[in-house]
Each structure stands twice: as C-alpha cells, then as structure tokens.
C-alpha cells in the first residue's frame, strides 16, 4: 500500500524539470513543452490528494479544469508563436525584443 508521499515527490521532480526546461530552452515550442510539464505536475498533485487525502472527488474535478485550461493555453500560445514566426521568421525567443521589454 503506497501513501501520498511518493506521488508528491514525483510531482515535485516533474515541476523542477518543467521549470528547468522553460528556463534553458530558447525555442518557444520547447518552452511550451516545459509548461505542459509544470501543469502535469500540478494535476498529478490534485489527483493524488483526491485518492489519498480527505477532499473526496473535488481533486479529480479540479484536475479536469486544469486539463481544459492547459489545452486552451496551448492553442493560444501556438497561434501567437505562428504569428511570431511569420513576423520575424524564427521561434527563437531571444529575437523577440521589438517591444524593448
């Protein structure tokens, strides 16, 4: 019988991996992959708490919301990246400095 702790530690590892991918990659689509890692870590936490915690089914419902939000985020981000690519012919995010931010 496994408890809550292994799932939480796996979720922490996935979160750190996602953050590392977002920081280290220069390709915008690779950054999006890192964001998917972070969101999956959060969802894994929610489902693990739903099974082993005291929240009941609320965790699974919240996990469904996270999945829907991740899909919407991916769609809009890819549309923005396509526009970015059409404007300056690359998806290297270091080139996107027209706004001087």
């Amino acid at each position, binding site marked *: 019988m496994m408890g*809550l702790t292994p799932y939480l530690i796996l979720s922490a590892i996935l979160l750190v991996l996602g953050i590392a991918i977002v920081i280290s*990659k220069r390709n915008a689509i690779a950054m999006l992959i890192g964001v998917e890692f972070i969101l999956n870590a959060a969802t894994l936490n929610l489902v693990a708490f739903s099974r082993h915690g005291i929240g009941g089914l609320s965790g699974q419902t919240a996990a469904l919301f996270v999945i829907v939000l991740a899909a919407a985020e991916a769609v809009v981000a890819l*549309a923005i990246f396509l526009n970015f690519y059409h404007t300056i012919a690359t998806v290297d995010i270091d080139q996107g400095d027209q706004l001087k931010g």
Partner: protein
Amino acid sequence: MLEAVIFFLLAGLAVAAGVAILLSTSIVRMAYWLITMLIAVGGLYFLLGAYFVGVIQILVYVGGVAVLLVFGVMLTSRQLAPKLRPGRGEVVWLALVGFVLLEALTLSILHTRWQQNAMAPANSVGEIGRSLLGEFLGPFELVSVLLLVAMLGAAYLARPKVPTQGPQHAKGTTVP
C-alpha cells in the same frame, strides 16, 4: 507490491522523459518525449483510481495538445539546432536553482504530516458529473466561456493576413 512496481516504472518513465527533453536538442524528439511523459502520467492516474481523468488525459493531451505541438514544430522549425544548446554558465545556474528548489520541496513534503484517508472516494463518472454541475457549476460555466474565447482568439490570431494597401505590403499585392 505490484502497485509499487508499476508506480516506479511509470514514474521513472516520466522523469526520464523530462531529463531527455532537457538534454535533447531536436525539437521533434522533445515532442516525442513529451508524449511519453503524458502517457506515463495518464497511467499514474489509472493507478490512483481516477479512471475518468486518466482517459481524459490520454484523449485531450496525447490526442489534442501533443498533436497540436507537433504541428507547431512542423510549421516553424527551420535551422534552429545551433540555438537550442544553453551556455556553460547557464547550465551551472540552472543546476543550482533546480537543486535548491527540489531540495526545498522534497524536505517540506517529507516533514509535513499529511492528513491521509486510506479509503478511496466513491469513484464513478456519474459522481464527477454531479460534482461538475453542482458544486463546481460556476467554474464549469466560466471554463466553457474561456474555451470559446480561446478558440475564437486562436482563429483570429492564426488567420491568413488580408493584404492591405499599405506601402510595406506593396510587393505582395500586385493587383491587376
């Protein structure tokens, strides 16, 4: 015992996929490893007894988001390979930050006394549906509006540009 074996198999697969993405320089391989990680996490949902969330994970993520990402890769990849590798200083900082963050999270997880419930919740699609349309009705409606907005926004952002009469488009618009 079997549960532990399956857990460590799937967890190792997910972590290996993350490390492979971190080390890889080919964006197509990254997309492949992302699909591997998504399937492994979906398997973990099945292991946790959340069958509906597992099915939705496979359907929406692997069937939708991952395929979308592959399309994005195919539409945008062009001579990006030399840009993908970070410098040596960046790697050192990244390892430091990642290690500190992982250590802090792991210590806080291990030193917390979690309130655990040994019994699994009554788990059926019907219960989740009642929860969605009862307790979570407000967020449910908000999310459906957000999906509509995201769909329209993506269609607006990705639409083909209508050539205008501006001077910067003069080469593209050769009107007879």
